[in-house]
């Protein structure tokens, strides 16, 4: 439905030097899918989204929505944002304070070149407001809405013109934690029910994992990895992705041999079976990522055959309620493991960790600078 090819956007300003805010971005989103741009603040997510919306003019690239080219750097096509007919929810919601709730939501229908009869406008708007459960507040002044209600009104306004594409820029970031959880489910439900193709921008990894069909992780204007939530979490391709999405253990090593699943890697904590599809030569220095919850702990040596088993000493532990974090020393390397509170090994005691090779991801490039525990 939406295809982005080689998109780059530069901010020119007379006083400062140009900022390459999005550089060579490529992705495509099938119809009905929710695609998330995820990355730290300032990485270019909003810029990419605004380029799709037409609020920024990219320097190069092609943007195709459906079978309509809305931007092409080479053939100088630029469709104005008001002619693209994409719905958009802004981070600040951008609810117009001088209009009522109803008028806010009716605006997209009123500014159409083809006028709709008043009755039809009313029906459509009320149906949309009902969908976001704001119909009882239709006559309120928009300034009297709470944060969560404003967010839903912004969504209703974006959806009322039945756009083929919905753009959401951190729609939940201005809500408090409780409401955010609730709206996350609500959003997902509405998106799945309407089957509307959606681009979702967020810096919150758990939001991205919870909502998306597919995630693109961005860093410094570039997409570093695209994949399903599970892919991104379990098989991060770079140290940046592994580090940004959840906490992880980075382990340095050298490839010794191939195995059925991938490779055998020698490291400071012993030799590990690790997973990787593409070709790596024996002898290459690599770094790996193992999630804390993928280090399975036991007090006696486990017997699984295909799992790597590592022995260590507990150096510290933190009780977190639903789980417990262990810091475990293995040959001068400290690992973080997270497990069920039923394990009660005392500090100083010996403990065994087993790792599924599939959960031990070899990263691109070495991560020695970022190797850290979280």
């Amino acid at each position: 439905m939406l295809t982005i090819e080689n998109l780059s956007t530069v901010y020119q300003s007379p006083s400062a030097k140009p900022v390459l805010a999005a550089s060579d971005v490529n992705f495509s989103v099938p119809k009905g899918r929710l695609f998330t741009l995820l990355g730290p603040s300032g990485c270019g997510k909003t810029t990419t989204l605004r380029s799709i919306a037409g609020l920024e003019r990219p320097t190069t690239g092609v943007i195709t929505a459906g079978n309509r080219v809305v931007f092409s750097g080479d053939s100088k096509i630029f469709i104005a944002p008001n002619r693209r007919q994409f719905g958009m929810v802004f981070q600040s919601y951008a609810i117009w304070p001088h209009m009522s709730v109803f008028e806010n939501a009716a605006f997209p229908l009123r500014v159409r070149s083809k006028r709709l009869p008043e009755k039809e406008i009313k029906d459509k708007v009320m149906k949309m407001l009902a969908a976001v459960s704001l119909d009882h507040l239709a006559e309120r002044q928009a300034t009297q809405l709470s944060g969560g209600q404003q967010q839903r009104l912004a969504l209703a306004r974006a959806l009322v013109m039945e756009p083929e594409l919905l753009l959401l820029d951190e729609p939940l970031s201005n809500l408090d934690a409780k409401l955010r959880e609730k709206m996350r489910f609500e959003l997902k439900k509405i998106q799945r029910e309407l089957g509307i193709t959606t681009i979702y921008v967020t810096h919150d990894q758990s939001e991205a994992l919870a909502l998306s069909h597919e995630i693109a992780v961005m860093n410094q204007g570039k997409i570093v990895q695209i994949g399903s939530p599970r892919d991104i979490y379990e098989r991060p391709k770079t140290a940046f992705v592994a580090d940004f999405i959840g906490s992880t253990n980075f382990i340095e090593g050298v490839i010794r041999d191939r195995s059925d699943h991938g490779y055998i890697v020698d490291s400071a904590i012993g030799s590990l079976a690790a997973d990787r599809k593409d070709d790596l030569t024996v002898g290459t220095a690599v770094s790996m990522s193992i999630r804390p919850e993928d280090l399975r702990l036991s007090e006696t040596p486990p017997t699984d055959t295909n799992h790597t088993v590592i022995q260590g000493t507990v150096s510290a532990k933190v009780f977190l309620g639903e789980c417990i974090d262990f810091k475990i020393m293995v040959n001068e390397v400290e690992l973080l493991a997270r497990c069920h509170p039923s394990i009660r090994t005392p500090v100083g005691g010996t403990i065994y960790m087993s790792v599924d090779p599939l959960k031990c991801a070899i990263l691109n490039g070495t991560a020695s600078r970022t190797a850290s525990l979280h």
Partner: protein
Amino acid sequence: MAMMTPTNEAMGLPGRVMRRLDTKWFVIGGATLVVAWLTLIPLGFLLWQSFHSTGTMQEPAVLTMENYITAFESAESLVLMGNSLQFAFLTAAFALVVGTFFAWVNERTNTPFKSLFFAMSIIPLIIPGILFTVSWIMLASPQIGILNKVFGSWFDIYSMAGMVWVDGLHYAPVAFLLVTAAFRSMDPSLEESAMMSGASVVQTAFKVTLKLAWPAILAAFIILFIRAIESFEVPALLGLPIGLRVFTSAIYDAVHSYPSNIGLASAYAVVLLLITSVGIYYQSRLSNQGSKYSTVTGKGFRPRVADIGRWRYLTGGIFILYVILVVGLPFLVLLWASLQRYYSVPSWNAVQHLSFNAYAKVLAYPGFYTAVWNSVKLALGGATIVMLLTSIICWITIRTKIQGRWLLDVLASLPLVFPGIVLGLSLMVFYLNFDIGIYATLWIMLMAYVIKFLPYGMRYNSTSMVQIHKELEESAAMSGASWLMTFRRVVLPLMKPGLMAGWIYIIVVSVRELSSSILLYSPGNEVISIMIWEFWQNGQYVELSAFGVMMITALFCFIMLVQSVSKRFGVKGM
């Protein structure tokens, strides 16, 4: 114990404590008295006078309602009121429409020549009202107007439309600045979401941008309305010759008729004061609730400007036309006239007789150097006094918790409601009656300038005062500095950028001041603007033009100099 020593010492030396308190209270009390005296006495006396007959040597003034009866019984006074309101309303509306249009074009579209838009906004500062009016008379009067000669009888500047045209054109840049500020404080996503909803550039402008800026636009309208109803130059030069009178020119007329009717002038002045007071009241209320729609997010990025395609040649063209009308033509016509021996419309014959004769005549004019020197003295003196006085007042109103400090704020802002001519009138009347030896001297004009520009000083100083952290002062006090020392060595230096900007602004507006001076000057005490006025009254058009060209050039150079210097030293707020 060592920490206690200074306190103990102070306790042991009550005299020193007393002295410390003394300077502070002495300064505070003094400033309060000065401000009260400056602003309240003229106002009070104006009211008194309006209820009294004009006293003469033979018969003392008596209590009477006569003035108000004269002012309001005749049908003529209704006409006067109608004219004043009509003129102010139309002028404000015209200036606002032009200014808002340019603000939108500049902030929201990709119109060419945008870098010139802000330069345009200092035009009312550079070209004084009287010169602007005179130059438009030379352009569009039925007898000598060049445009009327070129395009046939095209436009009669001596009319209500002419007055609105000249004053509105001149003050559109003020509207531009006010509305621009409102547009800039708007959350860009409010307009972007309208675009995303399918609204066109024009729909977005009318349904969102202007609606959201509405409180600010209304406030701008009131400011412009007050300024227009106080306007003296335009109604005096364009209205009086055809008997079209507004309050300001009627006051001037009443004072200058024979015998002069001060009582009637005062009654008009009181009515005018009432109108401006109501205006100021609503304007301050509007700006207090201005935050109603302010939805500014912390993001510093400006919204992307809309590409308006070929329309931008039109908007750019309109802007150039405006610059021609407001700077190009007026300056050129003055320049042309200044190079003549006798005023004449441009022609081949006239071109052959160009000369610098007028400049030589002006420079040899006996009163020339006195007038310039008087203006310089008044500008420098007035600006310095205002900035120092208001720095103390701002300190009191912002820093202290003294009861009733708001009253001081109100007092210092009171002159906002005084039209220049009313201020001139009330000072004249007061010091005529209570002779302390300043009537008909430069001192009374200095006093008028100080009063008139007090509010500007307040604005510049309070902006910079609120930015100075209180602890900076407190730490000076903890280091043992006295109040006076702290004020002189810490507060004033920190406020320097604001002080400088305000000082320069007041210098520039002082040099152009006419409407108060016109009732207060006396032979030998002329200032630059009065000299221009006299040239006009005497029909010395070429001398006037030469003088005007020199004045505009000098003001222009001064402002350019100041701007390049202040860029270097980081003086903000010009």
